């Protein structure tokens, strides 16, 4: 009993020593509410993940965390807002694949996220699922690609340059088949036309179709990640089923403006790590089709650079660049 108390005491002392070693800025941080900017309107996938994350981060950080939606300029507005903000840790961004690594290849940007944003930590990784409509008679990824070779298949996407679009572009390029792209405004209308047989197949987020897959309305041919998805254990990955090197996923990370004080970054990274190990957070993430994916600082920056190069090639090959 005594030793236990002693150990606790030692721990507390060590912790307070560690805390007092930090400069005043980080010790006080956060002394006012932290704003996390989301580049999309409320109600979407990124917004959902940001809100769940913010609620948990609030506990880990011990201060208010507010989600602010700043949609606009093809999801580049959020980047601009954060890039221009004070690097004090009170304005942060939930960055995802589109505006962080795909958009720089497509749009003329005011702020290049690689130069104006400081990656703090990656949060989550959400893989996509390849689904075939009820009228398309295929039962596997192989059959889909054979059918695509025989004649042009039409696929729907959640929009130009969306994760759903670029993942399908990569699929077509790696398989060497020509596919016809029909962009929609969001996954909902695209899935509707998939069900009605107006488009043949689609690559989309897991939560948007999981119910329709489970009741047999849509056929899930493969998931796009490196590993199978826990809620769809019988569905192979694209790599297993047809294209060994294929992987694509939508990911989310926490970024701030460049020039964040190191101690604030450390505190945020530590709070993020704590959040990511919270079972309640993992569970709610899973409902959004994601798994926690933890990369800190430079590792996250390297990951983004690799993603940027990779999707740049895909986008260039597909020639969807805007002059």
């Amino acid at each position: 009993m005594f030793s236990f108390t002693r150990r606790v005491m030692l721990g507390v002392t060590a912790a307070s020593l560690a805390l007092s070693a930090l400069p005043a800025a980080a010790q006080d941080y956060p002394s006012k509410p932290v704003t996390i900017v989301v580049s999309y309107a409320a109600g979407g996938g990124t917004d959902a993940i940001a809100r769940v994350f913010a609620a948990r981060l609030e506990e880990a950080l011990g201060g208010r965390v507010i989600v602010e939606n700043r949609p606009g300029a093809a999801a580049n507005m959020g980047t601009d807002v954060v890039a221009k903000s004070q690097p004090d840790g009170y304005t942060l961004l939930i960055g995802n694949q589109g505006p962080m690594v795909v958009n720089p290849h497509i749009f003329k940007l005011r702020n290049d996220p690689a130069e104006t944003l400081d990656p703090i930590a990656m949060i989550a990784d959400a893989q996509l699922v390849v689904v075939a409509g009820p009228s398309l008679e295929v039962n596997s990824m192989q059959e889909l690609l054979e059918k695509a070779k025989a004649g042009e298949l039409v696929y729907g996407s959640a929009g130009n340059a969306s994760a759903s679009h670029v993942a399908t572009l990569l699929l077509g390029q790696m398989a060497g088949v020509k596919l016809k792209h029909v962009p929609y405004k969001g996954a909902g209308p695209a899935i509707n036309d998939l069900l009605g047989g107006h488009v043949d197949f689609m690559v989309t987020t897991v939560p948007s179709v999981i119910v329709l897959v489970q009741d047999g309305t849509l056929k899930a041919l493969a998931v796009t990640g490196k590993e199978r998805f826990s809620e769809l254990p019988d569905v192979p990955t694209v790599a297993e089923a047809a294209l060994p090197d294929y992987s694509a996923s939508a990911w989310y990370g926490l970024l701030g403006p460049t020039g964040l004080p190191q101690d604030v970054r450390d505190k945020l990274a530590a709070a993020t790590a704590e959040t990511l190990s919270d079972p309640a957070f993992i569970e709610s993430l899973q409902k959004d089709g994601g798994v926690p994916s933890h990369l800190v600082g430079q590792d996250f920056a390297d990951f983004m650079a690799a993603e940027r190069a990779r999707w740049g090639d895909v986008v260039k090959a597909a020639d969807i660049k805007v002059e």
Partner: protein
Amino acid sequence: MMAMFEHLGLGLSVAATLQNIFFCFLGCLIGTLVGVLPGVGPVATISILLPVTLSLDPTGALIMLAGIYYGAQYGGSTTAILVNIPGEATAVVTAIDGHEMAKKGQAGLALGLAAIGSFIAGTIATIVIAALAMPMTRLGLLFGPAEYFSLMIMGLVLAVVLAHGSLVKALAMIVAGVLLSCVGADMETGRERMTFDIYMLTDGIEFVVLAMGVFGFGEIFKNLADPEKRDVMRGKIGRLLPTLTELRQNLGAILRGTGLGSVLGVLPGNGAILAPFASYALEKRISDRPQDFGTGVPQAVAGPESANNSGAQTSFIPLLTLGIPPNAVMALMVGAMMIQGIVPGPQVIQNSPDLFWGLVASMWIGNLMLVIINLPLIGVWVKLLKVPYRLLFPAIVAFCCIGLFSISNDGAQVIMAGIMGLVGFALYKLHFEPAPLALGFVLGRLLEEKLRQALIISDGSMTTFVTSPLSLGLLLVGAAALVIAVLPSIRKSRDEIFVED
């Protein structure tokens, strides 16, 4: 049929618990309030309240959120009628004759008809959801890009009928609306169109910005420029509730509007938007005094309001049967369900029938609640008109600015709406109608999207629009409406009204 009543019975037993009635009331009340405030829509409200619902039980949470949704639909009509500011696309039509009625001292009648029409429409739509959810879903799936495009073409033709002035001017407004809807990044290439390198235009113009500018701010400019005209109409308030005779006269319009709304509501991508416009056009077509439309005809309020409400409700069908959200509010409902651990879709009916039928039944209770909340409130709303204009208009401007700012937490939208206000005032001075502009704007976006999708699928072949029987049928209806509209005899009667103007 028996099963349906059993299901509704189960639903009522869930929805009519004290707790759920309270949530329903709360949702309807919040919804009405945010609906009345111009610009603060259900999307913003629901997303703010989403975390709060985490601590509620799933049924209660969904009942409350659904209440906010249709409460806001109704509240929006109140603002449209009283101050001519349609907060949402669906309220544009209500504003046309509703505000004219308010000017004539019939604000109470207009609000009462809107409430009672909405209630009847809501009751019928609840039964439609309970009995016909599956067949309605299949109908929605029939509408691919080609069919949708033809539906939009038909809608644009209907827009001509909305105008009560010159046909040429109405057409000019529709085309201007369609052009405005093209502003922003191209959907296929991302290339910017008509943005003049102005950053805030990259994502196009928000409907709320257009509506608040052209209608809201435009109306304020108009009233400030014409103080005498304003004071004349402001003295009268009139009777608050419709009489039985008036109800009987409007019952047909309410039922027709309900039917149109129920069908259009299930279409993907917000087909419900078309419902009030279609209802207005239908009422005008079958009315024995079409020349009076636009000057305050009760049927022109009762019909579209009913269409609006039934459409709002049947737009739950794709969400409940397929798990597909047809619009932004429904996408938020999906979010709310996911938070509660319920994945929306067909299995909800089997796995948690109490939640499903409870939600359906709560829609009916909610509609009843809206009548109960709103009928006594009509007196309060109407008294707003008695507030001196020098106090009222700064308040309206302030609320509009708050609403506009909340769209993207950005002052740019407020500035844009101010510019639109000047446009609205210029249109008024030049005797152009803003309603066809708004419809052209709303439909233009869908029109382009669906046209391009259809042409990608058909490899650029235009025959895709006539080979589908459904698409062909819609185009023929549109063509027939256009022929009737330009027939000389009708054009003559149009010109007469124009002269009266």
